[in-house]
């Protein structure tokens, strides 16, 4: 592919302009201000300007800077990991499940461990859905079981076994101190230990989740913001068909 180098844009092609703000854990003075400027230099910003500097009390100070990024990126070299499937609408998904599986697809979902943010998983699973996109409960050919908030991984796996689930959907919203990584790893370890991992389609979603991250964690797919039921359902049936064929 042809190279496609780009830089940030302020008001002229390749001027590289970026805006930056941060706090330094020192009171404001000329030295700390210069320190802020040097940090920007270290980040590879040319002609960085501290356009605002303010003391915050208790030994902290706040800075706003603008500078010109030296860095540029060749977009043509970027490959974004994406789950490969065609997004069908609800009817399309139902038809495909009926055709290929000949039975309902069983989907068990939950917010696991300490996470209690159910709005995201509800958006995917509950009848009502989100932003006008109906949830999985409204799909004829899906049996959707939403276990809700703060479900222990063990409990989720037990339920998946009990229901003979095809798909597990996990939601993780709290990411502070990377707690979601611990939680997600824990779940996949348990599945592994139960010998379930191969049999299940394992999907995670949440505002800070990307497909790439999900793959790294050993999940089959990851869905970020603005995902809807049809996205995950299309992925799931697609993956089911692929595995069946393999």
């Amino acid at each position, binding site marked *: 592919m042809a190279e496609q180098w780009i830089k940030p844009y302020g008001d002229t092609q390749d001027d590289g302009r970026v805006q930056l703000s941060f706090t330094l854990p020192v009171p404001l003075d000329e030295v700390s201000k210069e320190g802020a400027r040097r940090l920007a230099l270290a980040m590879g910003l040319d002609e960085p300007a501290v356009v605002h500097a303010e003391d915050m*009390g*208790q030994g*902290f100070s*706040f800075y706003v800077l603008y500078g010109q990024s030296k860095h540029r990126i060749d977009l043509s070299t970027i490959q974004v990991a994406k789950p490969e499937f065609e997004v069908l609408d609800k009817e399309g998904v139902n038809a495909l499940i009926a055709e290929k599986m000949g039975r309902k697809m069983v989907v068990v979902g939950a917010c696991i461990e300490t996470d*209690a943010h159910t709005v995201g998983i509800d958006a995917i699973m509950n009848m009502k859905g989100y932003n006008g996109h109906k949830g999985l409960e409204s799909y004829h050919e899906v049996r959707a079981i939403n276990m809700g*908030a703060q479900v222990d991984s063990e409990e989720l796996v037990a339920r998946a076994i009990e229901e003979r689930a095809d798909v597990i959907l996990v939601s993780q919203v709290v990411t*502070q101190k990377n*707690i979601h990584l611990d939680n997600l790893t824990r779940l996949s370890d348990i599945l592994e230990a139960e010998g379930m991992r191969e049999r299940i389609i394992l999907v995670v979603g949440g505002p800070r989740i990307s497909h790439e991250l999900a793959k790294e964690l050993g999940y089959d797919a990851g869905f970020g913001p603005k995902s809807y039921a049809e996205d995950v359902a299309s992925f799931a049936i697609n993956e089911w068909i692929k595995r069946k064929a393999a």
Partner: protein
Amino acid sequence: MAHLQLDQARIDRARNSARRIAGRVFDDMDRSTTTTVERATLRLMGIDGVDENQVPLPNRVVDHLQEQGLLNRGAALAVAAAMNEQGWTAQQVAEAVAAGRLVLDGGGDDTAARNTADALAAQSCEHIAAQRAQRAALIGNSGENGEVAQPWLYLIVATGNIYEDIKQARAAAEQGADIVAVIRSTGQSLLDYVPYGATTEGFGGTYATQENFRLMRAALDEVGAKVGRYIRLTNYCSGLCMPEIAAMGAIERLDMMLNDSMYGIIFRDINMQRTFIDQFFSRMINGYAGIIINTGEDNYLTTADAVEAAHTVLASQMINEQFAYLSGLAPEQMGLGHAFEINPELENGFLWELAHAQLVRQVFPDASLKYMPPTKHMTGNIFKGHVQDALFNMVSTVTQQNIHLLGMMTEAIHTPFIQDRFLAIQNARYVFGTMRDLHSEIEFKSGGLIEQRAQAVLAETESMLAEIERIGLPSAIAQGMFAEIKRTATGGKGLDGVIAKAPGYYNPFPKRMLQGGPRHG
């Protein structure tokens, strides 16, 4: 002042329904106690500390009593009896029980045990009253008075590490915060015990422990003296240990507590009976300690739509108000919660926010209303988010709210960085200052859209409360009437901690803390 024409008779009818709804729940629940109520009782009687497995001694004693089948007469009696018998302090009794050196059998002279329990309770109440008096003194010294610029600026810290929290809280106070809330670690609400000691490892918040309370209280007193204001400290009196946290907060002079009659049921799937019993006892402690409670109606709007569900907020506030009266709280201690959560894309959304906030203000003229910032419709666009927060600030000053939780432009991203808080305070101070007297300078058009909206919400509230009165609060919750979440009377966590009281059940605190008995609203 900006004022809406509202039908007072309608307000009265709604309030009467709420009174009967709360009264009925109270009567039903008065027949039971809970493990955490009993642990709170023991804490107030002076039992603290953990065993070698970090299990708190109040848990060890209460578990022991439950095994012995004695908890239904109240933990206070059994412990007091052992004190009398052994000549020990309550703490010594607890340590002996934990060490397996002592088995409580409920034996001994009941009257003597009661007296001992009463004496400890009196001592405990004295300490709490002294803390309350000190708060009043500190507020007096700081020169704060009725004329202090309202709304109070309420900020959260949530680093997970109490020492970082302290740094940030101090900085926030210097920058202008009036209230600092230490957010709890994700998941603490479902722990059936209270962690112990200073903690540095929370997720999305810092564990609520008595030591953490103490450390933060000291830090805020210190910075408060420096900035010449009394800085109020807030924590979460919520979850499976609500009464114990109330006890700890009363002892350590917290000033505000998140404390709702239904939040745990709806948002944490805690059993209904457990919650109602716990909230009554915890709220009583808060009332006695002069703590302002913050109710959690704002949360409804994170799952339900803020326009469609506006009346559920008002209905819930009325129920919370009546539960608060039952626990002896004065109106000024009622931080009834609501929020600015209408979709920013909705045409005229700002008008509806004004209508809702002003309605609540007029229905609860003496309450210390807690107004929550936009959260659900905040996005990663921090610039737009900062403007959403500015409009929220504006509604708050125009409708004269009391407890103003500062919105963070990074709401959709992370728990606040120090600069987020700094910029949020600047935002609010700018808006409050530049609009200082706006509230008394504009009027809502009589019969206009704003007034019509407020009247409509009030009417819906009245019918909702009438319906709840008809079916009872548990059924209403079971039907998902709040936050579109359904919970049943026997579902949820913590039901195993609900214990029917046996004849002779004794707890030395209610009669002291409720002095004049439950108030009536």
